[in-house]
């Protein structure tokens, strides 16, 4: 088990997401460092996969930009090694199971431990299918961050009880324009999760604005911001670090406001 859980102790967690090697190696390093220095609590780094079935067009486009740079897991490990020279911020990888499978479960987890990667978020590895990877994650103290969605229903209990690190709560089924109508159910969902575990929760999928992040932080223990960050990187490319720093500060403030309210 990693130290991820302790991150949530003192404040609402701001968890930004970047796609590795978008727009390039050095900017990815600088982006993560900028986020770390401006209020992020955990940074999620996406390892691109050719067929990201759980991702929308914004992240798919970022994956394609990364592939133009010939991104590989090995290259991303080198990126994290650079990042580690500048910050000790907790990092988790988000990727698809085939990437980890092909690298080798043991070798991948070992590499993660060496680089102080605390967890893995793998959207196509549901609870039942974690049994092959779990022994290696345990061996190297890597948390397998589970996802719980509005459709999880009776599955919440077993997923929550087995969770370590934090729980990634998926805010919606991904239909744009329906986000507001999920709010009430989202509170119920997190309440349900909390019945079975003391592991913190962070809400992700579709959170863009500081107001939304603040609202989510009144429901859960943190907010995961993906596409909004990837959009900034896409727009500003090599100049992204300064823009991400400013954005991170705004988000930090919003989340701290949520804490004061509670």
């Amino acid at each position, binding site marked *: 088990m990693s130290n991820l859980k302790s991150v949530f102790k003192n404040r609402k967690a701001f968890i930004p997401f970047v796609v590795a090697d978008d727009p390039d190696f050095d900017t990815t390093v600088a982006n993560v460092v900028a986020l770390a220095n401006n209020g992020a609590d955990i940074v999620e780094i996406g390892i691109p*996969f*050719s*067929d990201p*079935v*759980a991702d929308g067009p914004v992240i*798919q486009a970022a994956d394609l930009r990364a*592939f133009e740079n010939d991104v*590989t*897991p090995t290259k991303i490990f080198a990126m994290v090694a650079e990042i580690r020279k500048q910050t000790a911020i907790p990092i988790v990888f988000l990727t*698809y*199971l*085939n*990437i*980890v*499978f*092909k*690298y080798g479960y043991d070798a991948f987890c070992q590499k993660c431990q060496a680089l102080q990667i605390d967890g893995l978020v793998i*959207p*196509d*590895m*549901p*609870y*039942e*299918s974690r049994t092959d990877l779990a022994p290696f994650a345990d061996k190297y103290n890597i948390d397998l961050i*589970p*996802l*719980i*969605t509005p*459709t*999880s*229903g*009776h*599955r919440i209990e077993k*997923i929550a009880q087995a969770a370590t690190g934090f729980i990634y709560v*998926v805010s919606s*089924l*991904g*239909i744009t324009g329906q986000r507001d109508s999920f709010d009430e159910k989202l509170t119920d969902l997190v309440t349900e999760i909390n019945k079975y575990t003391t592991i913190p929760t962070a809400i992700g999928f579709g959170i863009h604005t500081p107001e939304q992040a603040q609202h989510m932080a009144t429901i859960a223990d943190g907010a995961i911001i993906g596409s909004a960050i990837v959009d900034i990187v896409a727009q500003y490319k090599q100049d992204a670090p300064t823009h991400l720093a400013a954005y991170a500060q705004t988000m930090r403030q919003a989340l701290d406001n949520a804490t004061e309210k509670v």
Partner: protein
Amino acid sequence: MKNSIKLDKNGYYGEFGGKYIPETLMNELEKIDQAYHHLKTDPKFQEELTDLLRNYANRPSLLYYAKNMTDDLGGAQIYLKREDLNHTGAHKINNVLGQALVAKHLGKTRLIAETGAGQHGVATATVAALLGMSCEVFMGKEDTDRQRLNVYRMELLGAKVHSVTSGSMVLKDAVNATMQEWASRVDDTFYLMGSAVGPYPFPEMVHDFQSVISKETKIQLAAQKHQLPDMVVACVGGGSNAIGSFADFIDDPTVQLVGAEAAGRGIDTKDTAATIELGSTGIFHGMKSIFLQDENGQINPVYSISAGLDYPGVGPEHSALAKANRAQYVGITDDEAVNAFEYIAKQEGIIAAIESCHAVAYVQKIAPKMRKDQIIVCTLSGRGDKDVSSVLKYKGVDLDV
């Protein structure tokens, strides 16, 4: 049991299969699992399905003795299992009727499906029309371009066709898009998977619904020749007609099972879709199986003249059959398939789907090497009207249809 080919309770055939899809869909998958395993042994459901197969889909399909081919090739006796004569012109209808009834029992009102060549899309649109359900079909842009008639057929049947422009714009990308659509709307929607791929229990359902092919073959051949075939040949993309053709013979060790994969421009080129010959174990599209992928686990873009075989993976049961050496899988090039397309048309007066012609091409190679008392059953999975213009184009003639 590493080399097991039998389905276990967790949905694996040996090491292949399982459920590798986003949590959003897991609850839904459980419901399908429960509903299907209830219906599988429900006589009323089976009766309903059998009635539709017989009176709507035109089953049983013929087992036709191809005398001209047999004489011309001079070896084994060749029998053609005529799935091309089914309503909608392909084997796809067998599976679609079954799954649509499952969907109906689950209270679904909307069917979504991926399609490569368009046959599965047409079959799904057909059944949606029959059962009064709405239907949306996802098809790679490459395929909507090369199979325009099938796009129109689906629209005629009341379906909405989405042209998928992500990735390499073929079958794999259509599957991605359909999965995304399913994840965003599960309540009223059933993903009618067209091939023997995807998360458990889809490979099992497709196996069961397509196994009507081999069950009939066994009975028909016994009636005509009082024996089992020596070899069964079928083309393999995801592998639905092949698993259906093999199913009832898997436990008959004297029956050789051969799957013809699409080698495209050749297995020594990048333009190929010969998954089992060239691929390696991976996890994608909900299953652990064999995929064409690079050393980092990125799925390869694949190529075949045949839109229906243009897929970088294969169903988990085929991977298990290959691993256990129970079935052999051979690559057939575009050239060989096109040659077979013309050959079977001229010999037997049958215009067969370019997919099926991959199997015919293997028969052309192997029949002369076999004894005259031996029997090959070759499944013609679909009819080839849809392929006429793309075969002409392949030969350098541009027919504007």
